[in-house]
């Protein structure tokens, strides 16, 4: 390019000292661009193949009665209602319990705690907990919520299942909350303090509202992880065939991934199609949740 100062300004010395080799540089540029494109395309292709496969198998099975019927030995009559209701129950309980706990802990760690060994220990532990395999939480939930707290939770109930998953998502929510709080510039806090506000006032009136979109996004993404969990729920004793819906916190329950898993492992091909239809339902719920997260972020982040 002739806009390059070296070439324009002093061609003789520039060409003698620099190997310009522009075409070579742009070639590397192109190669890198193609490589990144390939990375995107391959992952999208894999995803598309999965989605298309599931849609082809499952869409013919998907209808209103699939959503409103109970499971059956006949694949064409089998429905997903108890699993769907169970998943909704579990998700609502998780949201109600994990949001205040997780956000509270995040605020404490980010805004209130001093930088001492206790805070650092808690921090390391939370980061570690975020990476613990979910089956471990299942074993913990089995012992603590199902056995020890049996009088409260009613044993292998929807409440025990939800509490177990709360443990699973709490670290994620705490980390997301801290990230969101950290992204708020310190100048805002200092301005608040300068006006004589207490720490609580600053957090309540300034920091939290601004961080809320990020916190909500993180919370919903954490819930999206919980919705797909199977292993911890099977461990604590979620059932597979339930002819009725949960009507209180101590009801037995089943969830979408457990139902799908059961159908997939059946010998009959028709059950595999039914499982695909179940996967579509699960995917739609997931997409709705993620869409909510994106919506919240876009709606509120612009004002900051």
């Amino acid at each position, binding site marked *: 390019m002739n806009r390059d100062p070296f070439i324009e300004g002093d061609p003789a010395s520039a060409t003698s000292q620099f190997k310009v080799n522009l075409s070579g540089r742009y070639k590397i540029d192109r190669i890198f661009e193609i490589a990144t494109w390939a990375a995107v395309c391959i992952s999208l292709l894999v995803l598309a193949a999965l989605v298309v496969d599931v849609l082809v198998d499952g869409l013919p099975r998907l209808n209103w009665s699939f959503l*409103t019927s*109970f*499971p*059956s*030995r006949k694949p064409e009559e089998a429905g997903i*209602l108890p699993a*769907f*209701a169970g998943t*909704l*129950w579990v*998700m*609502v309980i998780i*949201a*109600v319990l994990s*949001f205040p706990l997780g956000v509270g802990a995040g605020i404490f760690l980010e805004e209130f705690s001093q930088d001492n060994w206790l805070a650092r220990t808690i921090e390391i532990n939370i980061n570690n907990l975020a990476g613990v395999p979910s089956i471990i939480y299942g074993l913990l939930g089995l012992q603590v919520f199902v056995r020890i707290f049996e009088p409260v939770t009613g*044993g*292998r109930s929807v409440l025990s299942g939800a509490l177990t998953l709360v443990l699973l998502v709490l670290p994620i929510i705490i980390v997301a909350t801290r990230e969101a709080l950290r992204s708020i510039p310190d100048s805002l806090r200092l301005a*608040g303090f300068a*006006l004589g*506000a207490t720490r609580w*006032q600053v957090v*309540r*009136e*300034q920091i*939290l*509202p*601004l961080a*809320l*979109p990020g916190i*909500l996004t993180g919370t919903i993404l954490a819930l999206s992880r919980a919705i797909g969990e199977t292993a911890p729920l*099977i461990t604590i*004793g*979620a*059932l*597979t*065939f*339930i*002819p*009725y*819906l949960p*009507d209180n916190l101590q009801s*037995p329950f089943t969830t979408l991934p457990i139902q799908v898993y*059961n159908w*997939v*492992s*059946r*010998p*009959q*091909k028709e059950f*595999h199609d039914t499982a695909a239809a179940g996967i579509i339902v699960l995917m739609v719920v997931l997409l709705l949740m993620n869409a*909510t997260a994106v919506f*919240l972020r876009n*709606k*509120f982040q612009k*004002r900051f």
Partner: protein
Amino acid sequence: MTFKNPLKYTSLGLFAGVLAIALAACSGGDNAATAPEGSESGSETAATDGGSTAEGEVKVDGSSTVFPISEAMAEEFMKENSGIKVTVGVSGTGGGFKKFCAGETDISNASRPIKQEEIELCEKGGIEYVEVPVSFDGLSVVVNPANDFASCMTPDDLKKMWEPAAEGQIENWNQIKADFPDKPLALYGPGTDSGTYDYFTAATVGEEGESRGDYTASEDDNVIVQGVAGDEGGLGFFGYAYYEENKDKLKLVEIDGGDGCVAPSAETIADGTYKPLSRPEFIYVKKESLSKPEVKAFAEYIIDPANAGLISEVGYVPLSSEIVTVVQKRLEEGKTGTVFGGESAVGLKLADVLSKEQ
């Protein structure tokens, strides 16, 4: 100056709104479900002594192999007895017994007889049980359709492939029999936790739960189907239903248990000529729960010959009528304990074992 920020409230409100919608959807589902239940109640005939308005809950848990039978039975049973709720869990035969012996369930599904340590567990928990065989399954040995040489094998041939000593040693078909071609052998089977694996190893290797470790194991039998179907030197085993659904992709191996080559089929599995790989499946009913009319009615419903069609429908083989008569008597009398004495059911004819008991 007050710090006002409407943003906080709108977004919180929005979040609460999402929750509210979810809750509403949830309770809406409840209503929809209870309505038909209520309207139907009491109208159907009931098999219980307690009359047509029997109510209560029957908790079933255990083997995933027996699950389809329980599910089918529960579905039909509840159509006739709308006040009774039957729930079925899948925690495996062993996991099911753990819950059963702790008194958490009424009925435990099992794809093998109760083991010695489980008998002791139940004794410790003070749980008495009635052992009820419900159906047969024939473990089917399958190979790739391109395999034209392995059409009949003996348990000893299978032992050569599967015994622990074969690990890393037996890698080729020609090591099994001299007239088999030079072809790499690839083994597929259920994971070591499954009752199917326990039974197969007991019947072939001779030692329950002992086999080579270097085979492709999967908890999902459909994966084994895929594996053998895509591997010319492949061999695998699983319940007969998985073969029946995939006949076009697999070739069945006949088994010579001493009286000539026999292929598994509904007849050969039921009369025991397909051996030693045909096995009974059980439910264990808690003695104490049998005093509850709903549990008794459900257990009777499962072994009622009139409902044997449901067992065939989900891919298993119903018991012969002689056995059913014996089993019904056991249940009626509430005869507790196991007839297998904590051992595997391999090599035992169910009819013989049961009649010896009488």
